[in-house]
């Protein structure tokens, strides 16, 4: 069973859409849920996606123009907070029929969708979907929500890379303070001691670490330190 760090690194090595597709399948298997989907609308209104929904459902969705009435799209559009599908307004007849049809095509009854906003009006949605009861799903989100937000942004970063047809800096540039923070951690310093050495509060240190983690595309701090070391950004 591959770790999340491994799956993220695999995603980050993607060079084409098929690799994003594979990443969604691997994540679905990793979490043991029904579906993982990444869907975006770029700055010129073009849409593409990668995900585990059946191709029959994708075709049906496009054919019926469900993009216009899907409460998930409506509920997430231009917002930046993640949404549990139960929170959305499924009360209209059209929405209810849409939902019933989705279930019929193998979509699970529970969903968690994370909107991601990129530059120039780029907008994407990352969805985890599963068939289970409310409590189980609430527990799943509580346990995995943070990681899913990170994963959603890594998918989007990769998709933006494809669109600009240029590889983003393979080695992200960390600022001097970020490098210091990562180096202390790599040397085994505790956060308290590292903050003391850097003459900043532990709170500030944690934010520098988080900014570095995001730049490095790592899942957590340990992963970030490992990536910084293997990229030669820091030396111990």
């Amino acid at each position: 069973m591959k770790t999340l760090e491994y799956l993220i690194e695999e995603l980050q090595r993607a060079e084409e859409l098929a690799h994003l597709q594979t990443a969604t399948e691997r994540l679905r298997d990793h979490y043991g849920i029904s579906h993982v989907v990444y869907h975006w609308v770029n700055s010129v209104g073009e849409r593409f996606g990668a995900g585990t929904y059946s191709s029959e459902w994708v075709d049906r969705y496009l054919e019926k123009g469900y993009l216009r009435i899907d409460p998930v799209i409506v509920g997430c559009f231009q917002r930046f907070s993640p949404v549990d599908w139960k929170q959305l307004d499924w009360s209209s007849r059209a929405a209810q029929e849409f939902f019933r049809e989705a279930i019929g095509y193998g979509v699970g009854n529970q969903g968690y969708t994370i909107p991601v906003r990129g530059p120039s009006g780029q907008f994407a949605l990352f969805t985890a979907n599963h068939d289970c009861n409310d409590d189980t799903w609430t527990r799943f989100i509580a346990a995995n929500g943070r990681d899913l937000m990170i994963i959603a942004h890594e998918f989007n970063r990769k998709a933006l890379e494809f669109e600009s047809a240029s590889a983003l800096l393979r080695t992200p540039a960390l600022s001097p303070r970020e490098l210091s923070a990562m180096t202390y951690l790599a040397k085994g310093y505790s956060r308290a001691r590292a903050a003391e050495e850097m003459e900043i509060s532990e709170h500030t240190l944690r934010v520098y670490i988080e900014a570095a983690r995001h730049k490095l595309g790592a899942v957590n701090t340990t992963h970030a330190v490992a990536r910084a070391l293997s990229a030669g950004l820091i030396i111990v």
Partner: protein
Amino acid sequence: MLRYLYGKDLVRHPRLLDSMFRHRAEQFARRLKWDVTVDSRGYERDAYDALNPLYVIWQLPDGSHGGSMRFLPTLGPTMVADHFGHLSGGVRIESPLIWECTRFCLAPGSDRRVAAALVLGAGEIMENFHLSHFVGVFDHRMERIYRIHGVVPDVIGTQGSGAGMIGVGLWEMKPEAWPRVLARVGIGRATSRAWFAASFGAPAARRAACA
């Protein structure tokens, strides 16, 4: 009660919208004398209001504004990144787990309960959306307001001194802060969750919260 509203949804609450932007003018333009713009309607609005931010608003029984603050993701344009990057240690604070919090505003005559309620709203946002920190810019007078209401930020960097001081700070909601904040607002966590659900939750939750 607390309302959580995106900018685009605020237009459906004209009384709340009108009183919030007027109170912002009162606090930031007239009292604190910040370099902000007040338009012909008496509203203080800036470029970040146009980015569809998430507002957390304390709504008074008559439907008007009692206090508010504004959130934007750090992955997009933020005040800190656009104008005060030199105060964050050379680090661009950017992460899906960090949001910027700005325009902490209290309506004239509001009490400590309102400030506590806003802190509560920030805590609910942090927990429900899996965030780790809020980052924000503040000045000497706002720092005093924060101290009075027990929401002192962790300062990353400052420029200037005395009345001209500007700083970038961090806030988080530690687990042990919840009981104190809830006590100040005078409610239990269940009520706080109900308010959150009323804005973000299912229509049934919305109906129940308004009953």
